[in-house]
């Protein structure tokens, strides 16, 4: 008996030693150059050496691109190389922003962009509101004395880990004409429908599927916020015979505000950039009913016969301006949290 128990343990120890040895051998490689650098550089400069790889990646793949983004947005043509692109001034922005009636995308020069704008706005308002409502409700329920809380918490979190493509395909399979949802409706005497072919239903399902895929994450943050509220505050409220609703309004909600703010900002930032699930689920359709901002960028820049990098970049910058506002809020709350 002990021999069979020992074997996996010994194997584990062996793998551990192997990985440890590998780690040591690899991490020891830069020892000489780093020691030489340390001898040459004063203490202050050494810090720069450590942050350099990170800064380099940021510089090449984040800061340089934003500069190029600006250049792309003021040049036209389908050429990829910046030098080959003709300067068009504000042409791209003009084209995007030219509309007879901003509420009616069909009157716009770039109707796809405006479909994207209005759909995204509709999506963000509905999705963020519903998601925060359900996350808060779930967190409040999970914060009670619940048997098996860990299991329930994990269950709500599970879809968060799934790939958006997988999430979309799971739901596509459920929503298809001969799918289980239509079968269920028929079993109760109703009439099924082609969920993703009717514009309003398709929009509704993009909202619902994205909530399904993400609410567990926000539930966790809110639950952590609820658990950080000291219990004796509630005891004091109970002594004062405060009604539950009053306790919730006057105690829980204000004390939870910082977490709610974090959740709100993160949810906004992510909802504005919705793409993956929706693109696989509906492809933006039917028609343009579920085309969102990022899909406009992707489609204009990469998925059409003529790649209009200038328009895509201009659209990106307009999206960036919106995101900037939310992210500044996020940074403020993060820094406050960091002390």
């Amino acid at each position: 008996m002990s021999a069979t128990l020992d074997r996996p343990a010994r194997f584990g120890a062996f793998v551990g030693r192997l990985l440890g040895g590998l780690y040591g051998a690899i991490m020891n490689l830069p020892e000489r150059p780093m020691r030489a650098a340390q001898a040459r550089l004063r203490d202050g400069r050494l810090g720069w050496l450590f942050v350099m790889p990170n800064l380099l990646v940021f510089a090449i793949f984040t800061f340089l691109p934003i500069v190029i983004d600006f250049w792309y947005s003021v040049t036209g043509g389908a050429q990829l190389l910046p030098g080959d692109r003709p300067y068009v001034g504000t042409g791209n922005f003009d084209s995007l922003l030219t509309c007879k009636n901003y509420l009616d995308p069909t009157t716009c020069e770039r109707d796809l962009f405006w479909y994207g704008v209005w759909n995204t706005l509709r999506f963000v308002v509905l999705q963020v509101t519903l998601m925060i409502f359900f996350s808060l409700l779930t967190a409040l329920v999970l914060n009670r004395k619940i048997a098996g809380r860990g299991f329930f918490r994990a269950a709500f979190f599970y879809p968060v880990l799934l790939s958006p493509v997988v999430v979309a395909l799971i739901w596509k399979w459920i929503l298809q004409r001969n799918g289980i949802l239509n079968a269920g409706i028929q079993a109760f005497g109703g009439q099924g429908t082609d969920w993703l072919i009717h514009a309003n239903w398709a929009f509704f399902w993009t909202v619902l599927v994205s909530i399904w895929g993400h609410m567990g994450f926000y539930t966790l943050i809110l639950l952590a916020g609820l658990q950080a509220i000291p219990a004796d505050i509630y005891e004091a409220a109970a002594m004062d015979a405060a009604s539950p609703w009053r306790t919730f309004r006057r105690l829980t909600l204000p004390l939870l505000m910082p977490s709610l703010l974090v959740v709100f900002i993160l949810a906004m930032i992510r909802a504005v950039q919705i793409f993956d699930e929706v693109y696989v689920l509906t492809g933006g359709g039917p028609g343009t009913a579920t085309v969102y901002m990022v899909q406009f960028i992707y489609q204009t820049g990469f998925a059409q016969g003529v790649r209009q990098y200038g328009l895509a970049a201009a659209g990106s910058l307009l999206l960036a301006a919106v995101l900037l506002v939310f992210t500044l809020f996020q940074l403020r709350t993060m820094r406050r949290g960091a002390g």
Partner: protein
Amino acid sequence: MIARMLMARRGRAGWDWTDWASYVYLVLGVILMFGPVLWLAVSSVKSQAGLDVFPPSLLPWEQARVAVPNQPSPLPLFRVTSGDHAGETLAQVRRIGLQAQLVSAIDPSQIIRMPTKDLQPEMRVHASWSNYSDLLAKFNFGLYFFNSVFITIVATVLTLLVNSMAAFALSKYRFKGREPVFLVMLATLMIPPTIVLVPNYLIAATLGLTNSLWGVIFPAVATPTGVFMLRQYMLTLPDDLLEAARMDNASEWRIYWRIVLPLSAPALAVLAIFSVMWRWNDFLWPMVVLSRSEVFTLPIALFSFQGDLQTQWQYLLAMTVCTLVPVTLIFIFLQRYITQGIASAGVK
């Protein structure tokens, strides 16, 4: 009344209706969260014919077949509902219009003719594992799987290394420009990958990284949330430890990998789990940078096949299941660390 449910009640004996409501809500939630995935998994072992049945059956029912001597392939089994042979189970050799020719397993040489209306297919639960084995035989599934695994592992190792080095310097050194560097890194939060899609494609093309797994790996190796999380953790490590090591003439690099990194293991583990999730599920950037099918990752392969395979859902379903299994395993074994990590860091 509803308000009672919203209340966190602690330590009161007895059940009232709010407890019932809570459990009903949670059980419904569990069904809603796991149900769709289970339905996908069950559907993925149905045969193509089984998938077309409406309303769908819960389990993968399939017409039973039996191998009969002198017949090239197994024959479908039918139960006879009326006539001389009522109650017997016979194998159908062929069907001509409304007439079927059947044989019994006892005497395969004797052909029995009867109208098809007297026959009912003999069904049994049977999992078509061939949906899965065909993935390897008919599609380059192994290659996509390898690509995804390679990207996930290499990118995660690099992410941990690069971000922990930065976090080490930002938490343990005082150097000129430390604050600005930290702010610049946090500022990258303002530039999500979606808005630098076009220029990043140019940069990847210039560096020869398009249609290469490295083109997927490099751009997101440095992450502001990673730096932030690790720095917060390393700030809690006592500086005395580092001083003691310096007394022993350890180099700064050695202090970093021998002392600081092992002590930061909990934070590194959280970042590692996140990184694995990010990479395994990544979609938009790989789709932009990878256009040749030899370098497809699983999500990209899934997406590109869903157009072609609309009529062959059995393969699409099986491939989807294969994509979610690794993540599900990680979830089962590590969900406590994941949920704790998110709750403490508030990042994803």
